[in-house]
């Protein structure tokens, strides 16, 4: 029995940050199951990047590099990983729940005729078997899920700590997986990647986030939140309705359709806490909610709550920080 963890390379070359969260999850699961853990890296520069992965405590690292895999496609990724899985015969395949994984992992699992337990927030082992916890009904319910036989598992952003991926005593052995890929199996033609806004923002890297919701009422009030973010040395973010209205660019959106973040401090201004937003920020270390409505669901997960008018509270906070 073994665990395979699938990492993801960014189009720009390095590892997607959530790769390390998946490595942590796989290491913890491997330890609990007393099973070896292998990593796989796939795509352009895979051989070059494999060193960094091999520095983690893993029993082996497989590298898959092929001209047909240089630009990501679900068809190419599925063919390549199917070959890796046949070779290594793992019992569990752990993946980060990135947009890319959502694009190919259901296909990969279906090709193997196996289930993908998606968006897992917690794992544990009971009587030698893995139990996966995932959320249903938009976070209103949790489910314990078990799978008999090969399971594919994608882990939700922020549920495992990437910085806790254990380093190995010595580099894990790296092996190259030779695969044949007939280019004609790739049916989708990937094109240009682009940003519509300036795109200097990486909310996932921010340590402090000030986030605004419908309570901000008017685009004219955004600078107030922006000033607070600046004073705290943080980034400004928003819930979906704010971005849909065009008050802030989409890249600043936190939530199920935006980014998932886990900063040290998440300060939510006028955000009620609909689950679509909460899934994107609940992993934050410290959560502060400012809301007029004391029954706002966000208070359920907040460490600190301020029931009050944000147009009074935020200027007071700015004054306090400027002291």
């Amino acid at each position, binding site marked *: 029995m073994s665990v395979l963890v699938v990492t993801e390379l960014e189009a720009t070359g390095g590892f997607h940050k959530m790769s390390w969260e998946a490595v942590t999850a796989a290491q913890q699961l491997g330890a609990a199951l007393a099973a070896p853990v292998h990593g796989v890296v796939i795509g352009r520069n895979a051989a070059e990047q494999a060193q960094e992965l091999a520095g983690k405590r893993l029993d082996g690292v497989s590298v898959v590099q092929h001209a047909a895999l240089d630009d990501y496609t*679900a*068809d190419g990724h*599925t063919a390549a990983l199917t070959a890796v899985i046949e070779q290594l015969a793992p019992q569990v395949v752990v993946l980060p729940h*990135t*947009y890319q994984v*959502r*694009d190919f992992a*259901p*296909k990969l*699992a*279906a*090709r193997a005729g196996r*289930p*993908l*337990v*998606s968006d897992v927030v917690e794992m544990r082992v009971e009587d030698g078997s893995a139990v996966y916890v995932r*959320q*249903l*009904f*938009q*976070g*209103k*319910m*949790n*489910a*314990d*899920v078990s*799978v008999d*036989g090969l399971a594919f598992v994608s882990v939700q952003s922020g549920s495992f700590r990437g910085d806790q991926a254990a380093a190995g005593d010595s580099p894990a052995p790296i092996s190259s997986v030779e695969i044949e890929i007939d280019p004609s199996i790739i*049916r*989708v033609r990937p*094109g*240009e*990647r*682009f*940003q519509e806004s300036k795109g200097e*923002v990486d*909310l996932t890297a921010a340590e*402090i986030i000030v986030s605004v919701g419908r309570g901000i009422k008017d685009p004219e009030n955004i600078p107030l939140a922006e000033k607070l973010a600046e004073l705290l040395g943080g980034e400004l973010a928003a819930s979906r309705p704010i971005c849909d209205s065009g008050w802030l*660019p989409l*890249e600043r959106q936190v939530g199920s*359709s935006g*980014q998932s973040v886990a900063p*040290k*401090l998440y300060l939510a201004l006028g955000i009620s806490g609909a689950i679509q937003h909460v899934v994107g920020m609940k992993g934050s*270390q*410290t959560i*502060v909610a400012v809301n007029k409505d004391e029954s706002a669901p966000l208070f*359920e*997960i*907040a460490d*600190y*709550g*301020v*029931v009050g008018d944000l147009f*009074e*509270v935020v*200027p*007071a906070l700015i*004054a306090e920080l400027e002291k």
Partner: protein
Amino acid sequence: MKIFVCLKQVPARDWTPELNDGGDWIDAEDAPVEMNEPDAYALEEALRLKEAHGGEVVAVSAGTQEAASTIREALAKGADRGILIEDEHLPAADALATARTLAAAIAPESPDLVLTGLQSDDAGYGQAGVILAELLDLPHATLIVEVQAEGSTLKLKRELEAGWFQRVEVDTPALLTIQSGINKVRYATLMGIKKARKKPLDRKTPEELGVTLDNMQTITRLYTPAKSKQTVFLKGAPAEQAAQLVEKLRHDARVL
């Protein structure tokens, strides 16, 4: 273009789920139901493509017999016919079982395009569309925010992470999962509702389609997530609240 759109009927978003006696699924008997919101965007996109390029929109759903009302809603908005695969176990089916059921109904129809929503508001697997593409041997593209059909080529815009997008192209037949917010969903008109009554709705069962509903991911327990935090509420006038908050963030939480 022959377009199939997959629609799921789900408990209404504001409904608070109640557990069944076994504690492994919900008791949805009294739950108000609605068309899964992400699927409504897929339906709208299907209708717009038909209006621009001609053809047919077929609404297909795998659910209980009540899901007929969701198909009727689609017919009222402009879909041409519906297929309902009904079984009381379908709402609790996992993504693979659901996709197998849908595939069995769709495959014989050889559609040019299959559209699905991004994920369901109930189980939220976010997988049925992509699995369906694999089972139907169709190429797929996900998180689509723009569709342009030029002959048999689809020119698409996909949403990536962190504000990035990508252009991709694929030839039909193909399957797309549609990102919520791609369009503005229409309402059914009274005339549409009236017409819908006369549109064909074909009912099948998984058995008739040769599908055995067999969940490979077993939910052993469903439960309300534990409240993980004890919220400290800061009292007083705004200035006092602000002072206490900054103090606590600096010295208790140590995040400033």
